[in-house]
C-alpha cells in the first residue's frame, strides 16, 4: 500500500500539523504556503506532494479558527465568519468551548467532504468520457462565469481581472501555429509567463509586502482552560443537524467551480440562522452560528478536488495550483486516472481521511502551545515569507526573469489587496483561459455555426446553467438597484 510508506506518512504529519500552524498565524494562510511549497513538491512523488499540499489546505482552515476566536482576527480569510460568534463566546469566558466547537464542526465538514469525494468522484469520472472538447470548453466557461458572479459587488472588477488572467496566458509562443504573441522582441518571454511566479507573486510576495509594513499592535489573548472535549460532545449531541446541513452546503459549493468557501459559509450561516430557535443570538455568540461557519468552510477543500480529479477542471485557485502537480508528473486527471492509477487515487482518499483525524487530535492536545504562534510579529513573518518566496520562484528553473515576473505580480497583488480587489480571478483566468483556448481550437473542426457548440447534451446543459446564472445575477442587480432608488428617492 502506498500510504504505508514512510515518505507519505511524513507528508501526512507535516501537512496536517504544518497546515494548522500556518492557519493559526494571521496573515499567512494556505494560499501563501502552498504557493511557496509547490515547486518543492515537484521533486516528490505525486501522492506525497499532493498529501502535503492538501494537508496544508485542509488543516489551515482548522487552525484559522484559533485567532478568529481568541483575538477576533481570522487566521485565514475564510475564517472571517468564525469571528462573528466564536469571539463573543470566548469573550464571555468560554474560549476553550468555542475552540472545541470549531474543531469538531470542522472535523465533521472535513470527514463528510472526503466521503463525498470518495463516492461522487468515480460517478463524475464515469460520465467524463462523454465529455468532448465542447463540453469541457463549456465547463471551463462556466467556471469563469461563476468566478465573476460570486464576487458580488465586485463583478466588473472580477471580470476585468479574469480578462487579465486570460491575456497573461497568451503571452509567449502559441502552441498551434508556433507564432509569437506579445513577446515584444524579448527572448525570455517566448516561454510565456508561468503560473508559479504569478501565484507566488500575487499570493506570497504581495502578502509579504503587506506584512512588512504592518504596525504590529500587541495582541491580548485570553487564557484557555477547561476540557478540550466539551465542544466535541456538544456538536455530536446537540448541534449535529446544523453541522450536517452546513457540511452539505460546503460540499455542493466546493464541487461547483469558482464558488468556494466564502459563499458556502455565508449560505450555511444564513440557513442556520433561519432554522434556529434562537436566531437573535447569531453574531452575539451563537454556538449554532460558529458550527455552521466552520463545518461549511472545512467541507470545501476535499469537495473542490472532485471536479479536478474527475474532469481535470480546477474550481478555485488552490486546486488550480495542485493541477500543476499532476501535470509535472504526467498524471492526467480524469477517468483514465482511475483505471491506470487506482492505488494513487485510493491512497489520496485515505490520506485525506487521515489528515482530519491527525489534525483534530493535534488541536485537542496542542492548542495551548499553538496560541503562542499568534504572538509572532507580522513584520517578522513578512521577512520569513519573502525569504521562502525565493525558494518557490527561483527553484522552478533557476530563471532570473521568473523572479522579475514574480516581483511584478507581487506589486500588482499589493495594489489589488490595498484596494480590496480579488486576486483569485487572475489565477483562474490563467488556468481556465488556457483550457478554453485549447478546447475552442480543437472543437472548431466540428463546429459550423455557433449553435454547434451547444448541440451535445452536456454542453447544452452547461450552457443553460451559464445563461441561468447570468439571468439570476442580472435580475438581482436590477432588484437591488430598484430598492436603492426607492430608499434614496424620498430623501432626495
Amino acid at each position: 500500500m502506498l500510504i504505508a510508506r514512510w515518505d507519505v506518512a511524513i507528508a501526512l504529519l507535516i501537512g496536517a500539523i504544518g497546515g494548522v500552524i500556518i492557519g493559526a498565524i494571521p496573515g499567512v494562510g494556505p494560499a501563501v504556503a502552498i504557493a511557496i511549497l509547490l515547486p518543492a513538491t515537484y521533486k516528490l512523488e505525486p501522492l506525497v506532494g499532493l498529501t502535503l499540499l492538501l494537508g496544508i489546505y485542509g488543516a489551515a482552515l482548522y487552525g484559522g479558527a484559533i485567532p478568529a476566536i481568541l483575538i477576533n482576527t481570522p487566521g485565514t480569510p475564510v475564517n472571517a465568519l468564525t469571528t462573528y460568534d466564536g469571539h463573543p463566546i470566548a469573550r464571555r469566558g468560554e474560549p476553550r468551548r468555542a475552540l472545541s466547537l470549531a474543531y469538531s464542526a470542522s472535523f465533521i465538514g472535513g470527514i463528510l467532504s472526503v466521503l463525498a469525494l470518495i463516492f461522487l468522484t468515480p460517478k463524475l469520472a464515469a460520465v467524463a468520457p462523454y465529455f468532448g472538447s465542447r463540453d469541457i470548453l463549456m465547463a471551463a466557461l462556466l467556471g469563469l462565469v461563476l468566478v465573476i458572479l460570486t464576487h458580488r459587488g465586485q463583478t466588473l472588477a472580477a471580470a476585468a481581472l479574469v480578462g487579465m488572467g486570460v491575456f497573461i496566458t497568451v503571452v509567449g509562443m502559441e502552441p498551434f501555429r508556433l507564432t509569437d504573441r506579445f513577446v515584444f522582441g524579448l527572448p525570455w518571454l517566448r516561454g510565456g509567463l508561468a503560473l508559479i511566479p504569478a501565484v507566488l507573486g500575487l499570493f506570497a510576495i504581495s502578502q509579504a509586502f503587506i506584512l512588512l509594513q504592518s504596525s504590529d499592535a500587541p495582541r491580548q489573548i485570553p487564557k484557555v482552560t477547561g476540557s478540550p472535549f466539551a465542544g466535541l460532545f456538544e456538536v455530536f449531541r446537540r448541534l449535529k443537524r446544523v453541522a450536517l446541513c452546513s457540511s452539505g452546503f460546503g460540499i455542493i459549493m466546493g464541487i461547483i467551480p469558482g464558488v468556494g468557501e466564502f459563499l458556502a459559509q455565508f449560505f450555511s450561516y444564513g440557513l442556520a440562522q433561519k432554522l434556529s430557535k434562537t436566531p437573535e443570538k447569531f453574531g452575539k455568540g451563537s454556538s449554532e452560528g460558529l458550527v455552521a461557519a466552520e463545518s461549511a468552510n472545512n467541507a470545501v477543500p476535499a469537495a473542490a478536488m472532485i471536479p479536478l480529479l474527475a474532469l481535470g477542471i480546477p474550481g478555485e485557485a488552490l486546486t488550480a495550483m495542485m493541477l500543476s502537480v499532476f501535470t509535472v508528473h504526467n498524471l492526467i486527471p480524469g477517468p483514465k486516472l482511475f483505471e491506470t492509477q487506482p492505488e494513487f487515487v485510493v491512497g489520496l482518499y485515505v490520506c485525506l481521511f487521515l489528515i482530519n483525524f491527525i489534525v483534530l487530535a493535534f488541536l485537542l492536545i496542542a492548542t495551548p502551545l499553538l496560541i503562542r504562534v499568534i504572538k509572532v510579529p507580522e513584520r517578522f513573518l513578512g521577512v520569513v515569507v519573502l525569504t521562502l518566496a525565493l525558494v518557490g520562484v527561483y527553484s522552478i528553473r533557476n530563471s532570473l526573469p521568473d523572479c522579475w515576473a514574480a516581483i511584478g505580480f507581487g506589486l500588482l497583488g499589493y495594489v489589488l489587496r490595498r484596494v480590496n480587489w480579488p486576486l483569485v480571478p487572475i489565477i483562474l483566468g490563467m488556468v481556465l483561459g488556457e483550457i478554453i483556448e485549447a478546447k475552442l481550437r480543437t472543437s472548431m473542426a466540428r463546429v459550423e455555426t455557433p449553435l454547434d457548440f451547444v448541440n451535445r447534451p452536456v454542453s447544452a446543459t452547461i450552457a443553460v446553467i451559464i445563461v441561468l446564472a447570468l439571468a439570476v445575477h442580472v435580475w438581482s442587480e436590477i432588484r437591488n438597484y430598484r430598492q436603492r432608488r426607492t430608499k434614496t428617492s424620498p430623501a432626495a
Partner: protein
Amino acid sequence: MDQPDNIRSSAAINFFCAAFIVLVTLVLVSQLGSQTRWLKRADLVMQPGFFPALGLLVMGVPALVLSVVSFRQMRSGIELESPRIVVAGFHRCCEFAVWFLVYVYIIRWVGYLMATLLFMPALSLRVGFRGVRWIVTAVLIGLVIVLLFRTGLQVRLPDGYIYGYLPPEIRNFMIRNF
C-alpha cells in the same frame, strides 16, 4: 443627497484602477497587429491573434464600464485623496522588491546558505527588529529554511561562484547541500 465618504472613496479608487486597466488595454490593443500574426485563409477563431484579442476584450470592456459607473458615483469629480490611497506604501514595496532582487542576485555569488544567512537578519534589522534575540532568531530560521529546502528536499538553486574557491571535498559537499 451626498453619498457617504467610504462609498465616494471606494468609487474613486475603483475609477482609478479601472481607468488604468482601460489604458493598459488600449495600449495592448494598439499592439495587436504587430505582436500577433494574422494569417490569410484561416478562420477567425484559428487566428493566433484571436485569443489575445478576446482576453483584451474581457479585460477592457468591464474595466471601461466600471470606470464610467465609478466616475458617475464620484459625482463631485476626481478626488485627490484617492490616488494616494492606491499607491500608499507602494514606494516601500518597491524597496522590499529591490531587497528581494538583491537576495536573488547574491545567491549566484555567495550561494544559497550564505545569502539567506545575510538576507534574513539584514531585512529583520531594516524592518525594526534590532535586538540580538531577533538577529539570532532570523539566522536560525534562515538556517532551518536552507536545511529544509536545499539540503532536505534538494530544491534546485544556483551554486555560488565562491564555492569554486573551496577545496574539492568541501566544494562538492557545499554544492550538493547548500
